[in-house]
């Protein structure tokens, strides 16, 4: 166990030096061309916001079901099959058929190549589960139908979220899917998440609808309230134009009224629709509706045919900027709720780094002093191994650009405390062996050999705990499992290569001394 070939000695030294270099490059910048990686600081250390958003898919499901009813009606009408009493009860589409067409309808809906109940060829499951009860059919989204619906709404939503976050211009945001209805947004370095939160909290569904002439709600109209809550208005359900037709929006100053407004421009289809509607509707009030609330309802004085316009309504410059941003980035398919938020201010992050480094330094110093007190020369060897262990650990974290969190720093300190265990086991074993064995080289060799299984056992158990924590833990706690796990590997390396190398050099040189350890 004590013999080291020259090649091995050199590789150990080279390896240690390279990783120590990686570790130091976090603090002192050397040549960027050779190595430019850094440890990432977690949100709890550099400050920032962690937001977990959940899509509320209920409106999407209802919308899709309503569209499905229209599609079914049209489809069977074309085939000249009579269906009646369509209704939507919860998430179930209900309709009836007449006796002689029952089998026909059933076959169409359950056909593997069905045009109205699709997905079968790709997913071996239909979009809808069909249940018949007499002549009554009920259609429900199948598990796959629902998964696909959720996935497509998640894909759309994540794209919109990304656009909105990018527009605000934070540095290196991290936007990830979680499951099939959640989005994780990490915003490092962001001091005040309120603006982003309120931007992400809006669906931003923009529509233009005429205000109805008569004040009574009736078929084809709906009652909506104004944004400021001051009053209500009855609005025609017919949508003249929606946000989909917008190509640009920006906050501007209206030179006549000196008001901040949002000016927008429309695509060709939108411009045409808008022109037509405004030329027939001169004199009417056009309501501009955002997420079911009327922003303003100006009167149409003349046809607007240029494909551009302005939205007014008590805007501050900030609120006009935000509205323009929302309109540019598009509407979310469904509302998003923030179900988890963790925000750390940058000064608290810095305080945590300072406290972490201080406690690492003190813990390290105490352990080093204790080891020298206990083992003298061998304590020094164990300490050298400990120092290189620390460099290796930080070096590896740097190489993989791992994320260091506050619990991660705790993991490093804990590694320092536990890393000496292996060397202690070996040294204690050697002490026992030297009692019966006069030749120090043989005693040292036996000490290493006999303690090996124990050391492996002991480290594997901690490694198991770290692994489980890595896969089950979230956020900062994950950072702890990374440093703890990597720490065990670097500990084994520093014990079996570095400390053993130093021990062998020392023992060979001092083999004639009495009581080496």
């Amino acid at each position, binding site marked *: 166990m004590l013999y080291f070939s020259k090649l091995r000695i050199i590789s150990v030294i080279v390896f240690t030096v390279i990783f120590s270099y990686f570790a130091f490059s976090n603090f002192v910048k050397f040549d960027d061309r050779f190595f430019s990686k850094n440890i990432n600081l977690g949100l*709890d250390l550099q400050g920032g916001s962690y937001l977990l958003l959940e899509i509320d898919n209920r409106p999407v499901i209802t919308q899709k079901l309503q569209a499905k009813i229209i599609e079914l009606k049209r489809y069977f009408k074309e085939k000249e099959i009579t269906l009646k009493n369509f209704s939507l009860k919860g998430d179930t589409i209900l309709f009836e058929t007449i006796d002689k067409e029952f089998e026909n309808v059933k076959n169409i809906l359950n056909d593997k190549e069905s045009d109205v109940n699709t997905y079968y060829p790709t997913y071996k499951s239909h979009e809808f589960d069909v249940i018949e009860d007499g002549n009554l059919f009920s259609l429900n989204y199948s598990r796959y139908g629902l998964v696909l619906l959720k996935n497509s709404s998640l894909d759309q939503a994540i794209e919109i979220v990304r656009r909105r976050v990018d527009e605000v211009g934070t540095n290196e945001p991290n936007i990830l899917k979680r499951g099939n209805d959640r989005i994780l947004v990490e915003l490092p370095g962001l001091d005040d998440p*309120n603006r982003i*939160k309120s931007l*992400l*909290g809006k669906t931003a569904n923009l529509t233009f609808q005429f205000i109805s002439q008569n004040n009574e709600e009736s078929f084809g109209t709906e009652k909506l309230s104004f944004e400021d809550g001051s009053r209500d208005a009855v609005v025609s359900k017919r949508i003249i134009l929606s946000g989909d037709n917008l190509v640009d929006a920006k906050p501007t100053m209206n030179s006549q009224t000196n008001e901040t407004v949002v000016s927008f421009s429309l695509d060709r289809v939108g411009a045409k629709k808008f022109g037509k509607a405004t030329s027939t509707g001169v004199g009417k009030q056009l309501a501009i509706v955002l997420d079911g609330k009327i922003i303003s309802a100006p009167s149409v004085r003349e046809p607007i045919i240029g494909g551009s316009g302005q939205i007014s309504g008590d805007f501050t410059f900030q609120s006009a900027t935000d509205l323009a941003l929302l309109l540019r980035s598009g509407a979310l398919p469904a509302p998003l*709720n*923030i*179900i988890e*938020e*963790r*925000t*750390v*201010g940058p*000064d*608290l992050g810095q305080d*945590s780094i300072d*406290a*972490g480094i*201080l*406690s*690492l330094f003190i*813990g390290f110093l*105490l*352990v080093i002093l*204790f*080891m020298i007190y*206990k083992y003298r020369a061998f304590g020094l060897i164990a300490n050298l191994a400990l120092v290189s262990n620390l460099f290796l650990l930080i070096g590896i974290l740097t190489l993989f650009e791992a994320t260091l969190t*506050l*619990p991660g720093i*705790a993991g490093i*300190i*804990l590694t*320092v*405390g*536990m890393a*000496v*265990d292996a060397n*202690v*086991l070996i040294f*204690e074993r050697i002490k*026992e062996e030297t009692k019966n064995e006069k030749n120090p080289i043989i005693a040292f060799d036996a000490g290493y050999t006999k303690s090996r*299984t*124990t050391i492996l*056992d*002991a480290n594997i*158990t*901690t*490694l*198991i*705990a770290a692994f*489980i*924590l890595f896969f*089950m*833990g*979230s956020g*900062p*706690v994950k950072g*702890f*499992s990374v440093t*703890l796990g990597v720490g065990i590997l670097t500990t084994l390396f520093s014990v079996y290569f570095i400390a053993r190398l130093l021990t062998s050099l020392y023992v060979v040189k001092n083999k004639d001394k009495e009581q080496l350890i």
Partner: protein
Amino acid sequence: MRDISFNKFYRKFNILSLLLIVISLVFLIFKGLNYGVDFKGGTLIELRTTDKTNNISLIRDSFNQMNLGDVSVKKFGNETDFIVKFEKQNSNDPEFIKNIQNKLSSSIGDVDFRRVENVGPKVSLELLKSGIIAISLSLAAMLLYIWIRFEWQFSLGAILAIFHDVIITLGIFSIFSLEINLSIVAAVLTIVGYSMNDTVVIFDRVRENLKKYSDIKIFDLTNISINETLSRTIITSVTTLLALFSIYLFGGEILKGFSLAMILGVIFGTYSSIYIANPILVALNVSQRTIVKEEKD
């Protein structure tokens, strides 16, 4: 090698341990754990006031006026730092936190929100579930590992020792109403690893000695093994505790709970390797035949 008769006190310490476990369980069942927002849901705000005359009751009063459910306010390290926790969390209102900050500023002067954690009921339930799964999984993995490496008598001893450490550590958290959050789960998992580590070192020696001496009874054999590994046990515990106390004292308020749980775990883990794991080997009457028979199989 020292020669301390640990085995004379097996019975006494077993009774003590049993008592501690019973007390812990009583507290865990009847008082329960003080879950933080991670597991209970709600909002946590760490705030710093500019006005030094602000005190806990003043801050509590201002929060109580906002209708946020149960509010708790605690000092957090500095004179001007406070931790405020309340039940309500509002995912549908993105202005929720901002409104609180505005109202607070008008009643107690400028405040800086240094940290905000807002966890919805669904997420907190999931976090609790995954925390429990993580701890159970690690126990199962340890059991499996030691079952492969040792004979069942040893596995039982090691696992009971771990349960002992985890239950008592959690019991102390329950008794003193210390907060259980995500980092405590990490601490408990590390305790499980540490306690196992410590037990394995002694068990390895017990097994080695079982092969070496056929005429020594397990009662004395465990004592020899404990003594042979004692200086390692002490040195490793001391260095680990030195590191942990350093985190506890200098690592900042956020790591206090974590390091305290670890400190308790290391102390009980070291104790249980000696006074739980070994008496179980004695009770199960482990002898040279136990390991020889296994090796024949």
